[in-house]
Structure formats: structure tokens, C-alpha cells
């Protein structure tokens, strides 16, 4: 394992990091940039806890090496709102619907929903369910999350 210097764009800012280029993006975001949104759930691309946006599309940061994102723009849960004081409409809807229990999976659900609404501003029930297939929630808060996402019309 040897480290190199890489530049990545996260939430609109360019960061220079020293890392093994094979390091999954998740650890760079969490450990180098101290971000809280993306979380480790499986490291196997099975649960979606680590979801971030790459050029606006939802990807699993646990399963993509940091070197593969240097030419892209990464957005995390921290970066979707207009500014630090406000919430993105999806975040707002999740709060209003109280769409969480423990909340560990919340990052994945919100980020996947943001990506979905960007492509499809008025998704129906089935489209939401199919699109969030990759996000696991063990507390059973999915029904609330679906309600929250439906509230946000693009």
C-alpha cells in the first residue's frame, strides 16, 4: 500500500488528500474530510448506507476507489442544502414525516431520493420503491420514507 496525492471535489470544494488510490471513497470522506453523512454499513455494495452523489447520480462510496472520482463532483448529505442554515426539500420532508427511527440508514434514503427526484420530479409509489431497492432499513421506517419522498414534488 502506498499513498499518493489526489484531488477530489466534494460539496463544491476541491480537497487534496494523501491516500492509497485504491482506498474506497467512503473512508476518504469520513476519515480525511470528517464528513458524517455517508456511513459504513456493509462495504459490499449491499445496503446503501454509504450513498453519495457522483455528478448527481447516487453511488455507493464503499465500493468505488477514490482514484475513480477525481474527475467528478461528489456531493454528500452535508452538501445538498442551499446553505448551512437550511435543509434540502428532501431533508425537510423526512423531518416533517419523522421518517426515521435509529436513523443510521437515513443518509442512504435521502441521497437516493435526491438523485431520483432529479431524474423524475414526480415519482409514483412503485418508482420510489424500485429506485430505493438498494437502501436497507432495519427499523422498518421505509413506509414513512416513501410518504416523505412523495411529499416532495420537483
Amino acid at each position: 500500500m502506498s499513498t499518493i496525492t489526489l484531488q477530489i471535489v466534494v460539496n463544491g470544494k476541491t480537497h487534496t488528500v494523501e491516500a492509497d488510490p485504491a482506498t474506497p471513497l467512503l473512508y476518504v470522506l469520513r476519515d480525511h474530510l470528517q464528513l458524517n453523512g455517508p456511513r459504513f454499513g456493509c462495504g459490499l455494495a449491499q445496503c446503501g448506507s454509504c450513498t453519495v452523489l457522483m455528478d448527481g447520480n447516487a453511488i455507493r462510496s464503499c465500493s468505488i476507489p477514490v482514484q475513480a472520482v477525481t474527475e467528478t463532483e461528489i456531493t454528500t448529505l452535508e452538501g445538498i442544502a442551499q446553505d448551512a442554515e437550511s435543509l434540502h426539500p428532501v431533508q425537510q420532508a423526512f423531518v416533517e414525516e419523522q421518517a426515521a427511527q435509529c436513523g443510521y440508514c437515513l443518509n442512504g434514503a435521502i441521497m437516493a431520493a435526491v438523485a431520483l427526484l432529479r431524474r423524475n420530479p414526480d415519482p409514483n409509489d412503485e418508482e420510489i420503491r424500485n429506485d430505493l431497492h438498494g437502501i436497507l432499513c432495519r427499523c422498518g421506517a421505509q413506509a414513512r420514507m416513501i410518504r416523505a419522498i412523495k411529499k416532495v414534488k420537483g
Partner: protein
Amino acid sequence: MIPQTRRNFIKTAGSLTIGFSLGGIPLFPGVFSCSGEIPDTTRSSSSVNAWLEILPNGNLRVFTGKIEIGQGIRTAIAQVAAEELNMDMEKIEVVLADTDRTPNESYTSGSRSIESSAMSVRHAAAYARQKLLDLAAKRLNTSTDDLWIKNGKVGHKNDKKTVSFNDILGGHQIEDEVNLEVQLKPRADRKVIGKPVPRQDIYDMAAAAPVFVHNLRFPDMVHARVVRPPAYQANLKEADETALLQQFPKLLKVVRNGSFLGVISKDEYTSIRAQEFLKENTTWTVSEKLPDIKDGGLPEYLKSLPAKDETVVDKGNISKANADTSWIKASYFKPYIMHGAIGPSCAVGLYEADQLYIWTHSQGVYPLRETLSGMLNMPMENIHVKGVPGSGCYGHNGADDVTADVALLARAYPGKHVRLQWSRHDEHAWEPYGSAMILEPKARLSNSGKITHWEYDLWSDTHSTRPGGNPGRLLPAWYLDKPMTDNSDGYFGGASRNAEPYYRIPNQQVHTHFFHGPLRISALRGLGAYANIFAIESFMDELAEQAGKDPYDFRLMHLDDPRAKEVVEKLHKLTSTTSHPEGTGLGIAFSRYKNNAAYCAIAARVAVKDDNDIQLQKMWAVIDAGETINPDGLKNQTEGGMIQSASWTLKEEVTFNTQHITSRDWNSYPIFRFDEVPEVEVIIIDRPEAPPLGAGEAAQGPAAAAVANAVYHTCGKRVRRLPVNKYIKM
């Protein structure tokens, strides 16, 4: 760093501290101790284990030993205190589990948080109000009847005079215990209790605030990983450390203690790679294999194990029932299932100057401290355990074990915060599971279709092996140079939770048969209630059919308790006034959790496709949990409980071979995904006059039976073995 103790924490200004009891003590005036004055350094009354503190700025702080596990306890506690003291929610801080700051409240489990803690806090807050009014009355030279209290101020009803709490306390630190009859705010005046107050922590989580133990970061923190053995019973023969260090020269430390093997590095990914490398480059001897069980043979195998038999219910006369009259019989089976937290267990530890500081999402910081003290052979006073929220756990999962891992690693690498998060494989393969159970009811019906006789046999392993001071129950302790093991039984009693039906049956026996099964076991949401209610409520449906009755009517025929009847009737109304699509079927079930907590009736609607694929469309619950503190919190827990239970019921089963667990990730242990989750609807019957009842586990059992019954009513297949999706095809 030295954590603040409670004492030096409050000895800063005038304050009023009310000690009270949290825990299983009935919440009626007069039961609190009457010790009067409390000495400065020690509490005289052993029943005082929580504090509520009025601060000079008029804010309130509540110390409780509970931990937030997604059940919204922080909000419920703040709500009841806000109610009694007429305070805005923002003025209330709730301090959760911390061995340096909060009382010893043992474990946060069994749905009792709201039932016990919130009610105790409410009494303490009401007592504080009384006390503040008394002090203010003296100061204003008037009677308490003429005073009002709001947001840290007391005022006179007839003139504009007000005094702040700070004035009232006059710089004194007053300590008292709840020791008088406490008058709670009358029902008609309540403004906060019973309202769907939103949880602040949901905002924080949605806004990416560092809520979880997983998000703790300290300067120079290092990352560890532990290399688990290939089997429960295994010894580490050789670990190629030279090759390891060649490959990973930046590793800070390799920790080996007997067969316990861990790595520490500055960089998290390096530790992960080193863990993977060691998995391939270590040799182990497996001293004991798991039993070789052919697919589907688990119930027979478990039944063949030596068992401890006991009769736990014996009513009327069963033996007089003629051997030749017909008994209706059935046998049900629930496999091992897992907690399956979405975030694998995580902890942080720091060992410095003989002191060990721990951050954990364990459900019991005090019992964990005691157990760590035993494992490390360290005085308890030198261990400081702070509870921090984690991923939802639903019982005793890997939280205590990962903390034990971190304690061992931090002690071997002093002076730095050591963080460890388990891998997905670690969590899936090493957490303690909910026990497999075999349930065999039989019954006789009268000519009019009433149940006259009921006999029920259940086979189960234990239902709790929480550490509770016993180091042999901490996973890494098994592998130390001087291994610690646990040969005790744990809490078998959990197996017979809800084993006795809540129905009027004159002649009844319940027999339990306890075995020690092959897998590691502990408490999972609802303990034995999930499987018992699945069996009893499936069987009630079978009996209803034999008796030629409608499933609703048949249950109502056997219920006496009017509150039980009401949830069933309300559900009936709900499902009969809803139109259901062609080709679908409904199933229902009822239970009163623990036979003394919340009442819950659940209906499920399914469609079953030609190839026996089940589509769970919708679930309804009617729940009566006594007085509702936060209706949205109760709904959230009940919705989540139904969805989780339906996932257990349709899909889940821990699998193993002779070596170890084979369901080691979300592909080999699938749970519900978004496209499988049913629509859910929850109706609450609020009873402001009745005590609040624990409800977090009330939906698990009836949800399971409702799903299985719905499958039967849709396609005619009675699936008695879980998971339903698998066994409907066999």
C-alpha cells in the same frame, strides 16, 4: 481528559436537584423513600437512582441511565417534564447513560423505557414544581394557590410580580427526593403529553450532525480491526506477523492475546486490509464443530437435544380430558434470526494513566463496566463508560462485544483513542441470535365451538445472555490467553413470554423444554413472544376454521378483557370498511404483549402468485398502550415493528454448516427491501386515564401470525414453519 462528575457538575450555582427512582417500581405516591435530608457525598436512599435538576437559568436537566435506541426516549422524557413544569421543550436537556454522570439503570430493554422512566421523570418534575411553588410562596409571602409557574418563572395571579427560579433558589443547592404525594397535572390542562412532538434527533440526523458513536472523532484517533476465528471453538496456532508487517509497514500495532488478534493503524483502510490479509495468513485449530444438519432438519435436531422440562401453567384439569376425544394439533417452527443492525457495532476506547474511557452503544453502560472490569481485571472505578447512540439494535447484538474488543486493544495501545467498527461479516456471523423455537399447541373444542382444553409445549434455548457482570459473555474473552467462558443458563424465562394465550380457556397447561443449542444466543426484540404469538395466533385461526367461525368472532368469543375486545373490534371495523382488491386475502391476529403490556391487533393483506410468490400489500394495527405520551412515536414504533416482523416472518433464517455461520451478509441473509415493504396504517386507542404501557415490542408477534394467516386465507396453504417464503414452496 477528566470527565465531569455529577457532583462537580452541579456544584457551580444555585440549583434544585430532585432524586427519584427509575425502574420497575410502581409509580404511585408513597412508594418513594422518605429519607429527607440527603448527605452531600452519598445518597442515603438506595431507591434514588435518577436526578432532575433545575438550573439557575431556569433550564432543566434530567439524568437517566437509559440510552436512545431509536425509540424516542429522549423526546418522551422531555415531554413529560415540559408538561409538569410548563416549560418549552428547548429548555430541557436529557442526559443519557454515562457511568460518570447518570444513575445505574441497568439495561434499556423490554419496552419499559417509557413505561418506567418517563413516568418517574414526570413524578419528579411534578414534585419539583410543588417544591418551587412552596419556596416562591414563602418568598412572596403568599399561598401556592395564587401562583403560576412557566418557563423558569413563578408569578402571582393577581399582580404582575414574578420571580425567576434563580431568585427562588437564592444561590442555594437544594437537594430532595420525591417523598410526598405528588399531584400530576390534571388531564384537562395537559398541553404536551399526548401530542406528536417531533424528535429533535431526527432533524440532527437528516442534517448530517454527528449523532452516532460511529461519528466520534478525536485528535490522533487510530483505527483497529479484530481477526475473528473461523469457528466458535477455535485456537490461533500461527499468525504470520512478519509477512503482515512487510505488506503493511505503517501498522502501528498488532495485538495478540491468546487467540485474540487485532491490528491498529492510523488509517482505517489499512486496518481493514490488514484484517483481510490475516484472515488468509493465519492457521487455527477448530476444537469443536457445529452439528451436521441436513437442510430442513433443524427442528428434529433441536428436539433431540437433552432438555430441561417444566410446566409453567396448569389450570383446570387437563388430564381428565379423555384420551380418545379428538384433539386438534399443530407444530410450528421459528428458526434462528438475527438483529442485523444496518450499522455494524462500533466503539471507541482510550486507556490513559490507569483509566479506561469507553464510548459505546451498549444498552447497559453500568453492567458493561462491571463486566469489563472482570475481563480486564481492573477496578471498576477506573473504567468510565459513556453511552452514545448507535444503529438500531433491537436487543443484545454486538454492541457489548465490540466494546470489549476496543477495551483490550486500547489497553494494549495506551494514550490514543482507538476506534473499531466491525465488518458486515463480523456482525452477521458473531452477534448472538434470537433462539430457534418449536411450538406445539393442541386444543379441544366444545360443540358450540369454544376451546375447552389447551396444551402447549415449547422448545427453546435461552433468551438473554447479556453480560451482566459475567466476562464469559463477552465474545473476545473466549479467546484470551486465559479464556473466560460462560456455562450459565442465561434468561430462559424469556422463552415463555406470551406462551399462555390471553383467552378464556378453562383447562390449560403450558410446558417448556429448554435446550442448549449450537449457536450463540441472546435477547432479540420481544424474546419468546414473537414465536409464541405466531404459533398461538396461527393456531387460533386453525381452530376458528374447525369451529366454523369467523376469525374475528372466534377471538372475541374467548376474550374477557374489554380493552382487548376493543382493539379487535376496531380492527374488524377498519378492515371491513376498506375495499380489498380481487385475489387478495386477509389475516388477523391479536395479543397483549407479555399479557400485561400493550394490546395490539394486526391485519395483513396479501396476494399470492402462481409460483407461490407472496406479495404483502398492507398491514393495519390497532394499539392500546394506555396513556399515549407521544402518539407519533408510538405509531413510528408500531409501523416499524410490523415491517420488521413481517421481514423476519417471510424471509429470515440464520444458516450454518459444521464450521460456522454461512449467512454472513445481506445476500445470504436477505431482509425486506423497499419494494417488499407493505403499506402500513396504525390506529391508536389513547387512554389518558390509564398508565402508559410498553409498546415497542407489541407488534412483533401479531404481525407474524397475521401474515401467515393472510397467506392461508389467500391460497389455502397453512405455513407453520418460518420463513414463510421458503416453506410455502415445500
